[in-house]
Structure formats: structure tokens, C-alpha cells
């Protein structure tokens, strides 16, 4: 019996009777991070890291039973040792290490290796079997250092100021938005946020993470109040009347998909910045090698292709058909979150 196996509910450890990021309702769930495809509603008990908990609490509501644990702290369930290790994906995100009778498995959730200035830095965990995402598991995806990307973003922002335009940058409201804000230079101009982004900012700040000052966009502000500013919003904010008061504007998107020209054109934004919270091709390969794993199970993304590539390199590898959906999913999910918040406002 494999230490972790795929069931209809999700990734399951039979020995400990616990699931990792399950997609159907279960009794006990270990959660890698707060994105909706990993942290679903309705489980009886949740366990995540201390720093992931506030956002998960915000998303799932007060009634859910959520416990949390320190990074690196070991916990035993029926002879199986579990620990959470930084995945560098968003604040609080973890890879979950599972050890039983000397055999080590790591379920990595979503991860990236470059330190992004706010999320706990990725930690390489040695293991026998590594379960990896492959959202950008193709050799065409190679990220520049984020310092260069933020230079481009700031240059574009300054150019928009010279052209008298408001800068609008779309980003997923949990994770990407805070990463961007954390790396923006508030000396350049004021930073405004969509409500869905600011809700998360408030939670993150309360946890003690530093974010430069931001102003929530609300109904009382008028055209002109945004002069020289940058507005951080989920992509779904663009489709609404909400954006009208930023005219004239220049719209950019920050996502790993922007590496490919076709995807940039599909989004029909003025500027596409290649900035992802997932590993690129080269880091992915470096991580696999670094873990020393002899078996690699590949989940969401270009899993067929990447798994075949690993097998050719001599590793034991196969695809795990999970229901995680990577960066694409995150973009779609935004509307769901905004929907939730609107509901709250009405109540």
C-alpha cells in the first residue's frame, strides 16, 4: 500500500486516515494553502500552518474547525509523522512531509523557489516520493528574476504617469496581489486596491506582515482622485462599471501565462508581466533533482508531458489526476471570492 494514494475524495493517507487538500468533504484534512482548489469548504477538521490560517478562516467562515501548526513541527498520527515546510507560493503555503517507517513522501501543493519578498521562502525537503505540480512544466516557461519584472512594472507605472493615465494591474486577490504590493515602491505614487484584494491585505497585515500603505477603492472617490496611482485588482474587476472612474487608464496583467504571446493577446491587456507564484521549468527540474526522490508523481498542469520527460530521464513517474488547477484556476476563482464578499456586505 502506497503511503499516499489517490481516492475519489482526494490524496489519502490510509495509515493515518487523513487527506491532503481533498476536494470532497472528509473528516480530517491537511491543507497546503488557502487557494480555493486546495482548501475547500465543508471538511470536519482542518489543519494548516499558523500563517495560512487567518486567510483560510476568512474564506471558509467562522464555523469551520481549523487548527494550525508551526512550520517544521512534527506531529504523529498513528505512527505517521507529518510536518509542514514552506512552499514559497503564498503567505503560509506549505509542502506537507509524510514519513512512515523510514519512507518519506512530500506533497508540495503549489510552490515556487524564488523568494518573493513576503511568503516564507521555499525549503527543499529530501524525500523518496515527491508529488509535484506542473502548472508551468514546459521548457517555454522560464521566469526572469522578480527584481527585473518589478523594474519593468515601475517603468510602465512612471510612463503612465507621464501620459496622464491611471495604472491598473490585475492579479489574483490572494497571493499575487500581496506579492506585487509588497514589492511596489510607494514613493512612485499612491497604491489603490479592489475590495477583494484589500480584504486579504487587512488579514495579512494583522498577522504582522508588512505591506506598503494602500487605499481601498470605494464609492466616494471620484475620477481624478486616482491621479498618478496604481490600482491592484482581480481580473474580473475589469469587466465591470467599476473601472470607469480610472479613465484614461493603462491595463496590465501579471501572470506566468504572460510568457506566451498568444496568452497575452487573449487577455487583450496593454501590458503583460511574466510573474508567477508557481515554479518555472528550470526550477521545477532543480527541485526534483534536489529532493533526491526516486519517484515523482505529477499533478495539475502539463502533467502527461512532464511525467513522460521524467521517465525518460530514468525516474519512476506517473500522473496523478487531481482536481487542482494551478494558475488558470486561480484566475477564474476570483469572481467566486468577490461574490462571497458582496454577500457579506449585504448581510
Amino acid at each position: 500500500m502506497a503511503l499516499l494514494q489517490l481516492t475519489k475524495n482526494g490524496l489519502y493517507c490510509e495509515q493515518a486516515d487523513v487527506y491532503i487538500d481533498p476536494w470532497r468533504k472528509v473528516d480530517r484534512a491537511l491543507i497546503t494553502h488557502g487557494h480555493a482548489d486546495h482548501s475547500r469548504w465543508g471538511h470536519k477538521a482542518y489543519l494548516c500552518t499558523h500563517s495560512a490560517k487567518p486567510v483560510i478562516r476568512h474564506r471558509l467562515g467562522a464555523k469551520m474547525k481549523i487548527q494550525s501548526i508551526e512550520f517544521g513541527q512534527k506531529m504523529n498520527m498513528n505512527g505517521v509523522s507529518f510536518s509542514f515546510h514552506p512552499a514559497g507560493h503564498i503567505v503560509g503555503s506549505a509542502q506537507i512531509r509524510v514519513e512512515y517507517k523510514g519512507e518519506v513522501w512530500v506533497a508540495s501543493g503549489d510552490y515556487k523557489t524564488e523568494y518573493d519578498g513576503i511568503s516564507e521562502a521555499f525549503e527543499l525537503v529530501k524525500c523518496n516520493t515527491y508529488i509535484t505540480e506542473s502548472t508551468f512544466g514546459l521548457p517555454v516557461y522560464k521566469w526572469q528574476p522578480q527584481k527585473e519584472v518589478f523594474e519593468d512594472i515601475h517603468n510602465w507605472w512612471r510612463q503612465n504617469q507621464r501620459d496622464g493615465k491611471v495604472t491598473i494591474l490585475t492579479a489574483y486577490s490572494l497571493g499575487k496581489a500581496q506579492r506585487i504590493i509588497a514589492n511596489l515602491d510607494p514613493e512612485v505614487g499612491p497604491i489603490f486596491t479592489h475590495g477583494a484584494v484589500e480584504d486579504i491585505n487587512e488579514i495579512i497585515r494583522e498577522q504582522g506582515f508588512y505591506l506598503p500603505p494602500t487605499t481601498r477603492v470605494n464609492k466616494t472617490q471620484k475620477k481624478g482622485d486616482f491621479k498618478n496611482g496604481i490600482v491592484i485588482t482581480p481580473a474580473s474587476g475589469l469587466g465591470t462599471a467599476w473601472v470607469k472612474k480610472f479613465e484614461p487608464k493603462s491595463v496590465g496583467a501579471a501572470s506566468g501565462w504572460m510568457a506566451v504571446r498568444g496568452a497575452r493577446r487573449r487577455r487583450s491587456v496593454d501590458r503583460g508581466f511574466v510573474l508567477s507564484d508557481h515554479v518555472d521549468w528550470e526550477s521545477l527540474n532543480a527541485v526534483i533533482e534536489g529532493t533526491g526522490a526516486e519517484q515523482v508523481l505529477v499533478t495539475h498542469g502539463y502533467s502527461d508531458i512532464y511525467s513522460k520527460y521524467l521517465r525518460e530521464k530514468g525516474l519512476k513517474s506517473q500522473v496523478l489526476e487531481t482536481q487542482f488547477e494551478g494558475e488558470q484556476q486561480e484566475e477564474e476563482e476570483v469572481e467566486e471570492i468577490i461574490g462571497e464578499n458582496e454577500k457579506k456586505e449585504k448581510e
Partner: protein
Amino acid sequence: MKRFAELFNLLDQTTSTKSKVTLLKDYFALVDDKDRMWAMALLSHRRPKRTIKTALLREWAAELSNLPLWLFEESYHIVGDLAETIALVLPAATHKKEEPLTYWIDLIKNLKDKEEVEKKEAILNAWSGLDAKERFIFNKLITGGFRVGVSQKLMTKALSQYTEIEEKSLTHRLMGNWSPDDTTFEELILNENPLDDISKPYPFYLAYAFDLTFEELGNVSEWQVERKWDGIRGQLIVRKENIFIWSRGEELVTDKFPEYKILTELLPDGTVIDGEILPFKDDKPLSFNILQTRIGRKNITKKILETAPVILMAYDLLELDGKDLRETPLYERRKLLEKLIAKVDHPVLKISPIVSGDSWSAFEKEREKSRSLDTEGLMLKRKESSYQSGRKKGDWWKWKVDPLTIDAVMLYAQRGHGRRSNLYTDYTFAVWDGDNLVPFTKAYSGLTDKEFAEVTKFVNKNTKEKFGPVRSVKAELVFEIAFEGISKSSRHKSGVALRFPRIKRWRKDKPVEEANTLKDLTDLLQNYQL
């Protein structure tokens, strides 16, 4: 090269026409005549002759990037653009080589008769000396297809601002079969006698789809109404004992249609006719499919000439006896055209008959007949209209017949290319035949990006089998498919082939059992066979 790569990058980053024109104009002013000519050529789909097979480029790129070829091919499939895929996978440059655009084009041209090893060395060396953006351009110089949202019109506008020459004259000068290799900026653009090049066509006047009310069109007697033929728009030119046929895509297709050769002797020197290249036999048009079998062929065999003969269905006269008639009103051009065609009196040149009617409702009835007459609808042309250039609203309208539709079940989905590489956008559809689903068509466009994302989610969760990039999915989603025509086909399992199939809408309201049947399709075939 750096400047051109930068121009391309900036053009790619803006959707504003005004800024594109400014960017182009600034570029034109900055570079020398040679680079400017090549930029103009590249942006109007003219590129140096291909000297390297793309199969070799793929092999070399995979090798230099240390990737198995299959992985490179998978990446190419997902990116959808070979030049870009290569630029993305290659390792970082090892040195920096700064040369103008023309230098790289010459380098590529000079590889023509070289041995494969020499070609390889030159290409690998070039890749290692260029950054990612420049590499992309370099690869595009070899593979072609500079799609950057710059139309010929936009480029002409920028050129007009730069040269201060009237846009219309430039449009004319830029048409035809020129290449920076056999002309100069001075000759092509600054030269004031555009008719020197006898092959040059006039810019086509294109109609908009009719979207007005009859009241807005005004009095019915002011309009000339013709059938809308289902062929290829073409311009036939006879000047100085030479004949040239241009297709609407500004391609010179003279050699593909030897039927017209005879007109060189029959038409007077200085004649330009606008019409439809139409497959035609036994006094009626043939299916467009038949013409399509000819288009791709290099050699036009006797057999093709027998099975897919073409005529020119003429509808306008742009030049007669060397005189430009475009400012003459349509009704006068029509009289001249009728006279000319009667005089020529040859079966390969017919005149598009005028459809008569004394009220708009009479024309509505005529439009109903379109399908049975193997036509696409009607053309409405204002009798007083001049022959304008490009797509202009007001005087010419195409009034197509409503498409046929059928509700079909999605059976297979394939990932899109390029713009939609992370979504499943290409679907195969089926109809019921008893308890079986018989696939009958593929269809692409027609859904919004949001709907594509939704279908992609469905595909991810309901895949039955995978065949490379194609997945078979649970039969559950129903779509309304619209198409322009239907014909018998022995190549398809269903026995029918559709013309211009596309997704009209997603029938979320329809359960899969209620999709149409094969019998519904064959009934359509009986009624509307083309």
C-alpha cells in the same frame, strides 16, 4: 535588429491604432532606406524566400536546448508559434551581436545554396548572439507570419505621415509583387508613376454586412442588386499583352487559373475587371469545396481543369483603355462592363446578372432563393457609388442568407493554439444515429473566452480518453452549430460536409438526448444541397 525587435515589442503592447501609427512613423524616420523597406515588406506579409526547412530549425533548437525532440514538439503545439517556441526554449545568449535588420535578412538569404552543416552553424551562431526578443524576430524572418495587429492600411498611414505622400497613392504603390531585393524605397514609394508596374491591381472595395433598415437604405431604385457568389474575389488585369489575376488577399494567382489566359487577346489593353473566380459547369456554380481542391495545388492538371473549371463572374470595371474608372458612378461602369463583355463573348467571362425587383420585400423574397441558386445571398450596391478602397460603410452591403443550424453533441476537444493555448477551444461534434453518436463536423469560433474556460473545466473533469492533444469527453454538452451550406461527402463517416461551420451558441438548456439526428442532417442535405 534591436530597433526592429523593439518596434515589434512596442506594437505588441498597445491596442491603440494611434500609438501604433506613431511608433511606425518614428521607426521609419529612424532607420535607413534598406531597413525601412524590409520593415514595410515584413509588415505586409512579404518575407525573404525560405532557405531553411522548419523541420531542421526544430531539430537544432531542441538540440541546442538539450531537450528531446518530442518535448520541443509538444511545446510548439501548445505555444502555437514556431518562432516563439524556439525563442523561448533556447538557453541565454552567449555573446551580443548588434547588426541592422537587413544584415540578418541577407544572412538568411545567403544560406540558400549552402550545405546543411554550414546552415546549422550560421543559425546556431545567430541564436547565440541575440536576446530572446531579437531571436523571435530572427526566427520570424525565416518562418514568416508577423502578426502584430498592423494592417497594411495602418502601415500605409504611418508611411504617409512619414513621406507626406497621400495615403491612397501609397496604397496603390505598395500593392503588387515587389520585394526589397528588386526595388528601392525611392523607386517604389517616391516614384510618381505607379502604373509603370503593369501588374498592379487596385485596392479592393469591400462591403460590410447589411445591418440597417430598408428605410435607411432609402429608395429601392437607387440600388443595384446582384447575387453574392460563393467563390474567390478576384481582379483581372490585362495590360500590354499581359494578364494578371489577383486574389483579395493580394496574392498574384495568375498561374493557378490558366482558363483566363485567352482573355489576354480578347480584352483591350488597359482593362481591369473586378469579379468572382467561380467554379462553374453546365450553366451553374459548383460547390466551393471543388474550388478549394484547386487552390492548394502547385500544378494544375488537365483533370482539375475538367472537374473544377472556373469562370470569372464579372461585376465591376475599374479600368478601360488604360483609364482609371473608379470615380465614375457604378451605373456608368456597369454599362461599360456590359458592353465589353458582350463584345468579348467568351464563356469564361460572364457578367453577374442584375436581380430585378421594385420593392425591398421583393428582394427579401429573392434572398430566400439564394441557397437553391447556390449563392450566399445578395449584394446591394448604390448606383451612384464610386469604387472605393478597403472596407467602407454606406454604399456597398452584403446581405447574406441566414445560416443553417443544427444542435450537436460535443465528443472530442482539442487544446487551442497561440492565443488560446491553455484552453480547449477546438471541438468535434456529433449527432444521434439511433443510440450512437456520429461525428460530423469540427467547429472553432463562436464562444466567449469565459465560455471556453467553462468548457475547459468540463473537459478536464470529464475526459474519457487522451489521444495526444485531443481528448474524448463524456457526451453531455450540446451546442448549436451554424453553417453556410451542406454537401455530400464520402470522406466523412456521417456522409456530409459542412461549409463554414461555427459554434452559434451553447445550448445549456438542451439535454443531450434532444440533440439533432443524422436524419435531420440528411434532410437538410436534400433541401439545400450545394
